[in-house]
């Protein structure tokens, strides 16, 4: 599904290398997790994959289903099936959440040559999905993420993911700032989307999210590289011993 090879990324504005040769393959239908200390480059990887400005790819490649995505516009990557749940969802005053969702869903359908959803069809689907994430009508009406609590913002990310039905979902620290109940809700939302044709890359700092979203593969990222790859037990190792041991071991 997603194949990243030798990816080197620096900042456009200053001479700073952040990703220093990332190799990672996420197979179709699998859930991979990336763990790693703060500042290791996890968010940068997610931004570069989804097309944010300000980064420069100096080497390597990233392909989604065999197609190079690094030269695509963000909206083209989205239409190709990529989705990023942001670590820090953006507040957009003046744009209603519902309008935003409908515009996004229909833009993607249009880009893929599918018919747009009518207002009534859209409303029916969004209400159903919002309900299972405990997102009330008021949150749908309000401007995108404005005045939402941390947990509400993260649930809103998952709602967008559920509406857009991407093939490749990247979740950047979706668990941060969530209490246990909110985390369960978010994990349920993610698990409901797990499917043989859909892959996940779950970025997290802590193991606890992985109790709820069970990964097939766990990677450890440090200083811009994947330094170790293993099964779910690797996450437990981090939980028990911290990163220091693993980093010392690979150094």
């Amino acid at each position: 599904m997603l194949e990243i090879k030798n990816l080197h990324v620096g900042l456009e504005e200053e001479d700073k290398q952040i990703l220093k040769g990332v190799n990672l393959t996420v197979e179709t239908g699998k859930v991979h997790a990336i763990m790693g200390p703060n500042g290791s480059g996890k968010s940068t990887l997610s931004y570069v994959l989804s097309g944010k400005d300000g980064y420069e790819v100096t080497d390597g490649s990233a392909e989604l289903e065999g197609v190079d995505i690094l030269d695509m516009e963000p909206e083209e990557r989205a239409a190709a099936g990529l989705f990023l749940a942001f670590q820090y969802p953006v507040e957009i005053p003046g744009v209603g959440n519902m309008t935003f969702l409908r515009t996004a869903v229909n833009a993607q359908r249009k880009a893929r040559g599918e018919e747009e959803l009518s207002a009534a069809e859209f409303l029916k689907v969004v209400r159903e999905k919002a309900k299972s994430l405990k997102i009330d009508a008021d949150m749908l009406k309000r401007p995108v993420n404005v005045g939402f609590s941390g947990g509400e913002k993260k649930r809103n990310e998952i709602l967008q993911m559920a509406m857009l039905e991407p093939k490749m979902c990247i979740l950047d620290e979706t668990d941060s700032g969530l209490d246990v109940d909110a985390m369960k809700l978010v994990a349920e939302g993610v698990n409901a989307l797990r499917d043989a044709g859909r892959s996940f890359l779950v970025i997290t700092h802590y193991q606890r999210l992985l109790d709820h979203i069970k990964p097939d593969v766990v990677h450890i990222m440090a200083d811009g590289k994947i330094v170790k790859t293993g099964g779910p037990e690797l996450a437990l190792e981090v939980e028990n011993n911290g990163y220091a041991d693993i980093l010392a071991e690979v150094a």
Partner: protein
Amino acid sequence: MSAKLKNKGVVPSITVPDGGKWATTARQTAADLLSETGLPHRRDEYWKYTDPTTLTAPEATPAAIFKSDEALPFDGVDAVKIVFVDGVYDAAQSDALELAGVEIETLADAAQKDIHWAGSVYGVLEGRGQNPVSRPLASYNTAVSEQGFVIRATGKAAKPISFIYLHESETSDAVIHHTIKLDEGADLTVLENGPAAARINAVMEVEVADSAAFHHVRAQGRDHERRTATHIFARLGTESSFKSFTLTVNGILTRNDAIIEFTGDNAHATVAGACAGDGAFHHDDTVFITHDAVNCESRQVFKKVLRNGAVGVFQGKILVKPDAQKTDGYQISQGLLLDENSTFQAKPELEIYADDVACSHGSTVGAIDDTALFYLTSRGIPHKEAQDMLTLAFLGEAIDEVEDEALADDLRSLLQGWMARRHS
């Protein structure tokens, strides 16, 4: 124009039109004042950012007619429609001047009659607004205008009055003067739309008596080359309300002045505007609000979206007189620059002589928020559409000042149309 102006501050020689007693007196007073002040020029304090040359030139610069098959704004509103063609009232295209709770007469007819209240409004509110800043284009208008309406609302108007200003001659030069009075407790909505002429000088004087409510929504037409100077003068009585909103898309030059005076306690005034300009577009909002009563609230909300060298100007003043305690004055002006060639200039002023007041003002200028743009595009929304959503959201905060939802929706769709046309 019935009288020609000489340029550059030189006093024009004016022959005031004949009319009834009250109109003639007011016209002569305005003409006398104009001969003292002269016409505006770039050296005047409030004309620093806007060049008045084409507004004061003896002839209007010709302006191409904008043709469109689309329905005019507010077309769906049930209103008394009054049509002007190139600044001249066209009775044949207009509805009958009949509206329950409202008396409507042409300025020409009213000027022949002894209408006492008109004599206390026409040229009077405009005259009060000449101090401390002179407004020569308004003096000129009062002195020479023979077009416009004299309107008195005695109760709640059954429906709005909608002025439609059609532009059909490339060289037309219009001077329109409306005189409006709302009696105690009256409620009236006035809509205006259209470019009016190649050049238009418009004045609207509004006397809002105690507990009356005046609503004004205006769209200034889509003609690219038109030049426009408007003045609104309003005087507000106790517990009255005044709300005016202007949408401007296109137009080579627009100068909108609003001069509002609170004379009764516990009143409210909102003056708001949204404009969108692309290329040869210069748009200036100049507002002067005088608080001379207790516990009044004023709001100024102005948003401008500018691209391809378009220029936006905002000059807004709140003057709080010594006895105007508990004044709540709010002012925000914001420019959104869609490229580096466009400019937005803001000159906010507060002059406060009372000690128990809450006044705030803010002005910002900036570009589209990249973070928000990335968020939208990462969800599959194409770049241009995402930019439009953010632009509309920005202007939407000004449109939110329009109470009537149907009118606000009309304004939003005008803007959407403007943005969609930028992409073709």
